[in-house]
């Protein structure tokens, strides 16, 4: 049974027509004991069929360990968004980007394809000035209307500066990790396992924290 009804398929198709270039998706999964991996796989297969600009490649987390290592994938299901040339953008989705997160997923695809909204000069300067490794983990719930904007912002930072990587993490799919970071409200954003922020602030708020890491 298809995941998207006719109306959503048509809307998604229209939106994806706005993609400038191609985007590669590297999906890490395994065949056994991971129900959500199978659902995510089915979602990606259907989603990528909506635009010829989306190229999906499926990897086995264990058998393709080398590729997982290269992209820094440490759990599954994981969707890595790669650019047209197959280079890593630092953008990852851990879990199935359904519910409200469909919006952050589309937003990342459009941006990686080259369809980006300009960032004001002063903020752009601050993003480019980040010269250490920054890992942003955005914990979300799929019923949270405010979460996609936090995810989209973190992913945009990753896209603009190679030193930054950003993960969407569905707290319901990775409960241990959520407990480890004491997630009891979403979006919760963790920077380098050290600093944290609850709620979706403006881009400048992300930079304020990154600059003091």
């Amino acid at each position: 049974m298809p995941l998207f009804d006719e109306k959503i398929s048509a809307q998604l198709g229209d939106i994806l027509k706005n993609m400038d270039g191609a985007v590669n998706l590297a999906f890490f999964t395994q065949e056994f004991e991971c129900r959500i991996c199978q659902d995510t796989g089915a979602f990606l297969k259907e989603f990528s069929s909506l635009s010829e600009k989306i190229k999906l490649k499926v990897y086995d987390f264990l058998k393709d360990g080398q590729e997982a290592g290269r992209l820094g994938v440490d759990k599954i299901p994981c969707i890595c968004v790669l650019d047209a040339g197959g280079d890593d953008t630092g953008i990852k989705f851990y879990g199935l980007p359904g519910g409200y997160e469909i919006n952050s997923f589309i937003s990342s695809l459009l941006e990686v394809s080259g369809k980006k909204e300009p960032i004001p000069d002063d903020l752009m300067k601050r993003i480019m000035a980040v010269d250490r490794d920054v890992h942003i983990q955005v914990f979300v719930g799929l019923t949270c209307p405010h979460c996609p904007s936090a995810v989209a912002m973190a992913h945009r930072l990753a896209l603009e500066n190679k030193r930054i990587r950003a993960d969407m993490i569905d707290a319901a799919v990775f409960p241990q990790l959520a407990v480890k970071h004491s997630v009891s409200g979403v979006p919760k954003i963790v920077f380098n396992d050290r600093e944290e922020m609850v709620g979706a602030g403006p881009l400048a708020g992300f930079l304020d924290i990154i600059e003091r890491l």
Partner: protein
Amino acid sequence: MDFNLNAVSFIAEKNFSRLDIKKTYDIMILGGGPAGLTAAVYCIRKGMSTGIIVNEVGGQVAWTSGIENYMGYRHINGVELVQKFKEQVLQFGIDYEEGRRIESVSSGPMKGVVLDDGRSFSSRALIIATGKDMRRLGVPGERELTGKGVAFCSICDAPFFSGKRVVVVGGGNSAMEAVHDLAPIASRVIIVQFLESLTADRVLIDKLESYGNVEVLYEHEVAEIRGGSSVESVEVRDRKTGKTSSISAGGVFIQIGLVPNSGFVKGVVSMNGSGEIIIDCSCNTSEAGIFAAGDVTTVPFKQIIIAGGEGAKAALSACEYVMRLT
């Protein structure tokens, strides 16, 4: 699997430019909810040079899951309606600033607006449509433990309290909605209500009995929220006896209504005791050239459709004011 797609936000052409500090605007709109966005459409169509400063697009509407009383849509989700509003403003093009709070405004023949990043803008008229924000308790522990068990959005955060004891503060509709999100998964839900009865709609109160794990403490108030890395207990005070007691709980959902976002304009325009900006039926405030609309004002009934209408009215009043100046 549900997909809450905001199709419009991706298709809409991006037609916003940044606010210009060197420009003198005819009208500056503060707020991006239904009142502010409607005002924007009216001002632009009248040919006014218009700017708009938005903290969160849609304001409270973006927090609403389903809307059935906005004409033209039998049922629409809040985020989607907001995107439609924004798209309608977008088609005209406007100087736009999002994600900023207003620090202060000043009156006089030329009005000034200062943002939280220090930039300031000037315009001939102002429309204040900054709406309302969730009311906080203002008790020790609330701020420190926000995101660590103290929560304000039950559809977002309820799943994290599965199997836990949870306190819901408040007795109105939003508090009951939180109870309905929590009761099926929490081990126990304790409602702390300031008044001697619940004020929510009957349909929401009637459903409480079906859960079997919900209790209500009437005429109680929260005195303190305690915890280290997360909420451990809630200290409540009996309003009749003054006695305090401690409820062990892993979470506190605060749903005690709203406060007007009017702090930045205090002393500039007149307000009522609850901080709402006093307006007349043309949306005039006590200060010439400063207009106000929507939930931040004394207008009776806070509804999306009313806020939209008030925004239109404030815009037309402001346009008239600017035209008389020149």
